[in-house]
C-alpha cells in the first residue's frame, strides 16, 4: 500500500536525521534545538546565518556537519580586503606543456557543497554581493563562464554581534536569502564539563559518515512531498502578513515597532521548514504547530525594527512571540 511506503520513507528520514544529529553532538555540545533547526534548513535546501560571540563552536559545527555527510567543505574568512574574485575564482595565465601560455579559470572556494562564510559582516558589500547569485541560483557567473555549483549546496554564515566596528551589516536583500537565523548563546553549566571532557583530553571524537550527498538530496525531495492543507498555508500567510505594518492582519505590535516585515520568501521558508518538522513528528501533513515552531528562526532576521523599538529595547523575538500569541489559527 502507498501509505506503507510513505510511512517507511518517513521512518527512514527520521532515522537518518537523528543519526546525523547524534554525530554532530559528539563534538558540538549542547544547543540541541539549534542543531535540529540547522539540519531542518539543510533538508529544506536553505542557507543558515548563525550569530554568536566568538568561541562557541560555530566553525566546529559546520565542519562536523560536513564530515558527517562526507561532502566538500570550504571555509572563507571574510576580511575587509577580500575581493569577489577571491571567492568566485579568476582566470589565470598558465604555461602549458608545449611551453605556451593559456588562460584557465581557477575556481574559488565558493565551488563546494558547504560554504562556511566566517564573519561575513567583515567583508565589503561588493564581496558580500558575490554570494547573492550563488545562494539564490546555485551558480556563479564570471566573464563568459557560468559555473553550476554542486548539490546539495548550503551557505552557513556566521557573524559576531559584539564587535561591530569596521563591519558592514548585511543588506536586506542578502539577509532575505538566508532561510533561518540562529542565535547561539553560551552553553549550560553541565555542557561546560562535557566540552572539557571532549576537548582538553587526549581522546578525539570519531565522527562517522551517516549519509552521502545523494541521500541528502533524496531526503530533501521527501520533505517536499509532505502535504500542506490550505488552512495551514493560510495561517502561514497571515502570520507573515501580520509582521507587515499596515497590512490587514497587522496588529499594534507590528504597526508600532516594525518598519517593514517579512516577504514571500518568508512564507516559502515557513512551509518548507514546517514540512521537515512534520516528518520529524511522524506526520505526513504539516500543522499550524509546525508553522509556529519555525516562525522565530525564519522571521527574526526579516523584521526591520524602528527607532522606537530600539529605544524601548524590544527585540524581534519578543515581538514575534507577541504576534504569534495574538494570531488565531482560524480567520
Amino acid at each position: 500500500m502507498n501509505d506503507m511506503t510513505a510511512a517507511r520513507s518517513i521512518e527512514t528520514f527520521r532515522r537518518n536525521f537523528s543519526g546525523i544529529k547524534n554525530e554532530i553532538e559528539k563534538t558540538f555540545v549542547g544547543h540541541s534545538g539549534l542543531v535540529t533547526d540547522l539540519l531542518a534548513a539543510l533538508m529544506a535546501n536553505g542557507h543558515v546565518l548563525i550569530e554568536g560571540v566568538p568561541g562557541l563552536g560555530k566553525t566546529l559545527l559546520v565542519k562536523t556537519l560536513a564530515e558527517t555527510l562526507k561532502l566538500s567543505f570550504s571555509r572563507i574568512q571574510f576580511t575587509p580586503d577580500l575581493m569577489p574574485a577571491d571567492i568566485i575564482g579568476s582566470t589565470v595565465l598558465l604555461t602549458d606543456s608545449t611551453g605556451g601560455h593559456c588562460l584557465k579559470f581557477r575556481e574559488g572556494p565558493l565551488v563546494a557543497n558547504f560554504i562556511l562564510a566566517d564573519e561575513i559582516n567583515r567583508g565589503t558589500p561588493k564581496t558580500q554581493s558575490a554570494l547573492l547569485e550563488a545562494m539564490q541560483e546555485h551558480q556563479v557567473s564570471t566573464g563568459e563562464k557560468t559555473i553550476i555549483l554542486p548539490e546539495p549546496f548550503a551557505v552557513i554564515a556566521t557573524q559576531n554581534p559584539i564587535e561591530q566596528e569596521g563591519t558592514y551589516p548585511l543588506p536586506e536583500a542578502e539577509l532575505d536569502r538566508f532561510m533561518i537565523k540562529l542565535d547561539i548563546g553560551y552553553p549550560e553549566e553541565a555542557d561546560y564539563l562535557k566540552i572539557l571532557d571532549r576537548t582538553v583530553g587526549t581522546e578525539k571524537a570519531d565522527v562517522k559518515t551517516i549519509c552521502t550527498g545523494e541521500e541528502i538530496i533524496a531526503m530533501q525531495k521527501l520533505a517536499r512531498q509532505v502535504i500542506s492543507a490550505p488552512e495551514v498555508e493560510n495561517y502561514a500567510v497571515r502570520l507573515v502578513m501580520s509582521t507587515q505594518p499596515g497590512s490587514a492582519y497587522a496588529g499594534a505590535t507590528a504597526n508600532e515597532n516594525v518598519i517593514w516585515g517579512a516577504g514571500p520568501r518568508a512564507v516559502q521558508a515557513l512551509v518548507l521548514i514546517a514540512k521537515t518538522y512534520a516528518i520529524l513528528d511522524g506526520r505526513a501533513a504539516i500543522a499550524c504547530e509546525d508553522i509556529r515552531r519555525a516562525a522565530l528562526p525564519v522571521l527574526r532576521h526579516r523584521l526591520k525594527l524602528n527607532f522606537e523599538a530600539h529605544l524601548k529595547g524590544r527585540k524581534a523575538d519578543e515581538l514575534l512571540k507577541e504576534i504569534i500569541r495574538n494570531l488565531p489559527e482560524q480567520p
Partner: protein
Amino acid sequence: MKYFFIEQIKSRRRQLIYELAGWSARCALFPAGMCLVVLAFLALCQVRIPFILVIPAACWLIAGIVLFVRNFPDLKKTAVLCDQIFDGKNQFTTALFILQNKVEGEFADCTVKWAVERLETARHAPRYFQERRDYGRWTLLFVLTAGAIFFLPQFTEEAGLGYSPAEATRDLHEEISIRLPGKSPEPENPRQNPAQIHSAVSALKGVSHEKTSQGKVLQSPASDNSGSPHEAASGGSGDGGNTRPGASSGKERKAGAAALMPADKPPAGKRLNSGNGGSTGISGLQNAENEESSLSDGGGDNLDKALSEEPENQRKNQRQNARGGLRPLLRDNAPPAGRELSDKDGHGDQPGDGRGGPSGHKKARGTASWLPVVPIPDQVGGKLSSGRDIEIKEKVPPREADAGISEPLPRRDMDEYAGRRQDATRKIRLELAKYYLQMHEQNQSIKDSVL
C-alpha cells in the same frame, strides 16, 4: 478507509449538533422562561403589565435560534472542532481536504489513515460546548438584575410604599378643597401664587403646609421627626420611610393641620424645617430655608411679612445670581475707571481726541515700568533719516519720430579730412625750416632743400 473517515466525521457532526442544540436552549430558553415567570408573578399581584414587557422574553428566544444557526457545524467546521478537541494538529482538516479534493499520493493516504486511527481512539472526549455552559448563568443573572431594577419601582408604587411628587401635589389640592370648600384649588402653575411656591418647595422637602382660617400658611413638621434632616431632603425613590409627610395619608395631614390652629403657635426654638440639607441646590430654596429657620425662632407674627417679602427677595437673588453672585451697588454713580494710559493733567482720565501724533509724556509700559521714578519717554529726539530711495522705472514705448535716429549718418569725403591734415603738416615744416635756417645760416644747400 476514505469512506470510513467521512462516516466518522458525519457521526461527530451529529454529536456536535445535538450539543449545540442543548447549549442554545440553555442559553435562550432559561432566561426567556424566567422573564415569563416574573410576568406571571406580577400578574398574580394584580399589577398591570404592559404588553411591551413580553418583548425581552421573545428576544431571548430569537437569540437562542440565532446562536444555533450561527454555530451550526458543517463538515469542515466539524473537522476543525475535532482538531481542537482531540489535539489533531490539523490532521482531520487536512484529511478532509484530501478526500474532498481527491488528492493522490503516499502522503495523502498516510494522512487519512492517521486521522481515522485518531478518531477511533477518541471515544470519550469531553463535550465541546460543555465549557460554554456559563453563558446560561450569566444571562440568568443579567435577567434577574434587569428585572429587579425595572420592575421594583413600579411594584412599590402600586403598594404605596414609594414617593411620587405628582401625588403629593394632587393630595395637597384635595386638602385645600376639603378645608376651604368655597375656594377653588390654586392653579397648577405655582409661579402665579407665591404661597403655592412655598408649598411646593416644602412639599419637596417633606413639610406639609396648612392654611389657617385667616388664610395664613403654616408649616407643620413631619408626622414623625425621628428621621434625620437629610433623609427628608434626599430624593430616594426607594425610601419608603415615614420621614416624608408629604406623601403621608390624608388622616395624618388633617391631624397635623388641626394641631396647628392659630392659637397653637409652634414653640420657640422648635425646628419646623426638617430639611436643612438643602440638597436641591436652588437658591430660591436656600432662601426659603433661611426664611423658615428665622421664622422658627420668631414665632408666627412675622410669618406673613416674611412670606410676602419672600417672592421679591427670590427675584432679586435670582437676578444677582444671574450676574454671577451678589454684587455691591454703585451708589455714587461715579464713572468707571479709565483705561487710557495718558497724562491726567488734572482733568482726570479723558478719552483721546482721536488724532495721532505725540501727546506728551505717557505712562511707561513693560518691565521698566516696574521700577519707580524711571521715566521712559515715548519719543526720542534725533536726526531724521533720509529715508529710502524709491526708484520707479517705466517702460516707454518707442515713438515713431525716434526711428530716424537709427539711420546712419551720410558718408563724407575722406579727402577733405586728409587735406586738412596736410595743411597742418606743412605749417609745421615751415616752422621747422625757419628754425633750422636760423640755426644754420651758412649752409645754402640746406636752405634750398627745405624750400
